[in-house]
């Protein structure tokens, strides 16, 4: 059971151009900052990135977009990013938008061995184009398929040497499902502890889903919209 890697560079070995990569996080909350930084410093290009959002112009996935390392984005919401919009409108970047719940469930399905399932979201909209529509109990649903990745890059608060993960507040979001959906899942954590130190009741992602783990450094944890109560 040797899942611990020294740093992001070591842990990301095997990630190559033109692969499909999932990245956890919602906006800039709970994103794998170390892994993103490492990819930005590499020559990897042509990535298909699956992530709820696309970061902002100069942080998160936005850094990879600016460096033209991303060929295609699968996401639910891509506002807050001018460069993204420019690349999308110019056709440089391929974009597939999914309803957020459908995106979450497609990723969960991949981890759970469920190739397809039906949801009501998107019936009668552009999202339904090319998809099977089917009636159950008098209501229409769309068939959606699982969404897998070569690498899943997730970020947790605490982790142990067996790969067990605990998230902090709303920084869980897509990380938990993505951990199970990567052929190789790499978790970066703020605090890495020996197996046995985390309460088994409190573990959000069981270690079976995580192949590699490392303790991240220099987390900026940028806030998109600081909103203060007077």
């Amino acid at each position: 059971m040797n899942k611990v890697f020294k740093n992001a560079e070591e842990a990301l070995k095997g990630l190559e151009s033109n692969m499909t990569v999932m990245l956890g996080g919602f906006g800039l909350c709970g994103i794998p900052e170390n892994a993103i930084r490492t990819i930005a410093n590499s020559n990897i290009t042509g990535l298909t990135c699956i992530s709820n959002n696309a970061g902002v112009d100069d942080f998160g996935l936005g850094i990879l977009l600016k460096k033209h390392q991303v060929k295609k984005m699968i996401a639910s919401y891509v506002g807050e990013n001018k460069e993204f919009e420019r690349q999308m409108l110019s056709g440089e970047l391929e974009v597939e938008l999914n309803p957020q719940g459908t995106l979450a469930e497609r990723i969960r399905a991949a981890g759970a061995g469920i190739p397809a399932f039906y949801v009501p979201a998107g019936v009668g909209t552009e999202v339904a184009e090319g998809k099977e529509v089917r009636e159950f109990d008098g209501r229409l649903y769309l068939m959606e398929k699982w969404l897998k990745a070569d690498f899943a890059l997730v970020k947790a608060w605490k982790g142990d040497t067996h790969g067990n993960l605990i998230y902090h507040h709303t920084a869980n979001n897509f990380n938990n499902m993505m951990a199970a959906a990567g052929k190789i899942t790499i978790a970066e954590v703020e605090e890495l502890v020996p197996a046995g130190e985390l309460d088994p009741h409190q573990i959000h992602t069981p270690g079976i889903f995580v192949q590699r783990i490392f303790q991240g450094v220099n987390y900026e944890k940028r806030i998109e919209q600081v909103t203060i109560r007077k």
Partner: protein
Amino acid sequence: MALDKNQIAKRIAQEVKDGYYVNLGIGIPTLVANFIPEGIEVVLQSENGLLGIGPFPTESELDADLINAGKQTVTYAKGASFFDSATSFAMIRGGHVDMTILGAFEVSEKGDIASWKIPGKLIKGMGGSMDLVAGAKNIIVAMMHTDKEGNSKILKNCTLPLTGVKCVQKVVTNLAVLEITENGFKLLERAPGVSVEEIQKYTEATLIIEGEIPEMNV
């Protein structure tokens, strides 16, 4: 006089009942939280993984790991819980959220809503809106009655790409409260001092008007 955003939010807050689980969209809907009447306990769901949104934080409470779906920093209320996005949308898609309040570009008399894309101009993505309108039991739209040029956004048919079909129950605008019925928009209330004729003038769809239409209490 037409309502301002806070007044629209205040009027919508009257729709919220004790014990409701409510999802508030970005913009005017977020303001609804400020007007929940005393004595009514409501739990706010945030689709990024929080049930029980609290007030905005003080400077010292600020936490990058604690945001709402609009990416604003928040706190959490007593009895809150955190979870992943799949569980969050199980709540939404599974019909466990009692009410969803969201914004829109257009609403049609069939209850269709368009809110996520203006072709050639703006594509931010649908986020959780398509799941929300397909899942929640009670969908209320908060919006301006017209665009900046005065064109009606309350339509016979939506012109923009849809977010969902036949899903909206009620619309609260700066001019009126409208209910969507089998036969189209029914005018329930007028903004204070705004006449029925004026509302119809700014409404492309035909309004169903039955009896005296009261003014909103805002």
